[in-house]
């Protein structure tokens, strides 16, 4: 009951903010554009096959789906960090929320964003496939959601959760939205070059690099990590790059990082003066 009330408060704030609609709208429009172009290319004879499911599920993730990680970072940071800038987090607590309730409300908002971003490729894909009305758009080559796609979309869900948690942590720690965004992107981008540099000096760092947050998150949507043979082939081909992790380990690590990010954010929020 309390969770619903907290979500209601956060949803009220978010749905009146331009950043929520701009980021979500941009994400949805990217799928519509992608599907529209696919359809146009087929109609114009530039592409032999039309968009069809289950074959093209993965294309949705590899194409516009990749933007989701960037957009959810922006949305989470701006929706969370601005509460500190405007000192409304302090006022919310003065008005009667406990620190824990305020924090939980924001976490629920981040989870809501994850659900929206996760469901967008599924809904837009299904809508195009089912309601387009052209034969061949659901290709009948197998079940609508094959196991590999469940892995990929499950991985996408965890990727979004972990990315949102990372953005959430920096949004809580940083003193403004700008610095939170900068910290998040520097943290994400700087990991690989640093670990690769260290890997060239000592074997030990390869084991660390393949478990670095960005490295772990980026492989979650790859269905190959769930197939030992394909994973072995893939890793052989990654010359000089840290090998990918098996699916279960990658998921467990990503969830571990998620818990760590949320834990750090909570400790920072709990112990600081508002």
């Amino acid at each position, binding site marked *: 009951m309390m969770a619903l009330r907290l979500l209601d408060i956060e949803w009220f704030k978010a749905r009146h*903010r331009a950043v929520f609609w701009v980021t979500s709208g941009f994400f949805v429009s990217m799928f519509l554009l992608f599907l529209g172009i696919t359809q146009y290319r087929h109609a114009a004879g530039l592409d032999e096959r039309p968009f069809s499911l289950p074959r093209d599920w993965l294309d949705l993730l590899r194409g516009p789906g990749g933007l989701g990680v960037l957009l959810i970072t922006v949305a989470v940071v701006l929706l969370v960090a601005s509460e500190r800038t405007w000192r409304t987090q*302090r006022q919310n607590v003065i008005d009667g929320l406990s620190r824990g309730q305020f924090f939980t409300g924001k976490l629920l908002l981040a989870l809501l964003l994850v659900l929206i971003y996760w469901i967008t490729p599924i809904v837009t894909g299904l809508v195009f496939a089912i309601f387009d009305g052209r034969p061949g758009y659901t290709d009948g080559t197998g079940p609508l959601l094959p196991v590999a796609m469940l892995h990929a979309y499950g991985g996408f869900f965890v990727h979004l959760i972990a990315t949102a948690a990372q953005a959430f942590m920096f949004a809580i720690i940083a003193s403004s939205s700008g610095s939170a965004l900068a910290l998040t992107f520097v943290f994400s981008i700087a990991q690989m070059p640093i670990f690769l540099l260290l890997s060239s000096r000592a074997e030990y760092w390869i084991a660390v690099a393949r478990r670095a947050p960005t490295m772990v998150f980026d492989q979650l949507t790859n269905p190959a990590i769930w197939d030992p043979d394909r994973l072995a082939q893939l890793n052989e081909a990654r010359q000089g790059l840290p090998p990918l992790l098996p699916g279960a380990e990658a998921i467990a690590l990503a969830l571990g990082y998620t818990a760590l990010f949320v834990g750090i954010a909570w400790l920072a929020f709990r112990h600081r003066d508002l």
Partner: protein
Amino acid sequence: MRIIEVSDLTKRYGRLTAVDRISFTVEQGQVFGFLGPNGSGKTTTIGLLLGIVHPDGGTIRLFEQYGMAELHTARRRIGATLETPNFYPYLSGRDNLRVVAKIKEASEADVSAALDAVGLTPRQGDRFSKYSLGMKQRLAIAGAMMGDPELVILDEPANGLDPEGMREIREIIHGLAGQGRTIFVSSHLLYEVERTCTHVAIIKKGRILTQGPLDQLVRGTSLARVRSADREALLRAVGEYPAVVRAEPEGADVLLELRDEDLAALNRFLAEREVYLSHLVLQRQSLEDVFIDLTGDRPDLAPEEAAA
């Protein structure tokens, strides 16, 4: 009932002691003025009372039942503003109060009533970012009033307002006090506090210098200005008068600090010693005099003086 009970409360920021072992109590129904220059520790003290600033020492007890660990529960019985009004700039005044109402589990009717009480109903649909400072302050008070709080804490509610805005805020505070609520109001505007509060504490550099009922503070040391043709005889005679605390020559006059306001008795005492006064007037000490005596600071002027 003791609504606020603070004992040896301390807060440090590095080497700076913002609040230094302060103690005070606020009883039910009081309008308690927390006076001090800018940077004296008023806002930090309120933050400590509300549990949003972590103390380094001391205790707080609210409503005689909530200790330090239960301040978040006590906040449900408190309406408060801290420093500048803190609202969502992209939301309208009404929508901002809706957020407050959701937190306090108040109704839409409560939102309307709060807007009415502070006279913001005609501008309720405007964005908060478009509000003037006075409107923002009134909206903050409306937010604090939501949920029928027993204790209302207002931090510098008249800050930055013009005389008309100050008058409006004063009327709102009087209205809240008239409803029997306990009010804790911090300010560096003595004139406003003197016209609004029943009790006062004066804080400087994190320490409370004095506290008590306002009328006792300003009446405790009455001043009389006296003049006589023979000033030396006057000074000798007043030195023998039991109610004189201090006598200081000031131009042609002598300024007397008295324990009482019985000027007839003073005049009679002096006449018996053949000292005849050509000038005798009681100078009631204002809160400003008390403040200057204690802090050595020149406080902000009353709006009328400032305008002049």
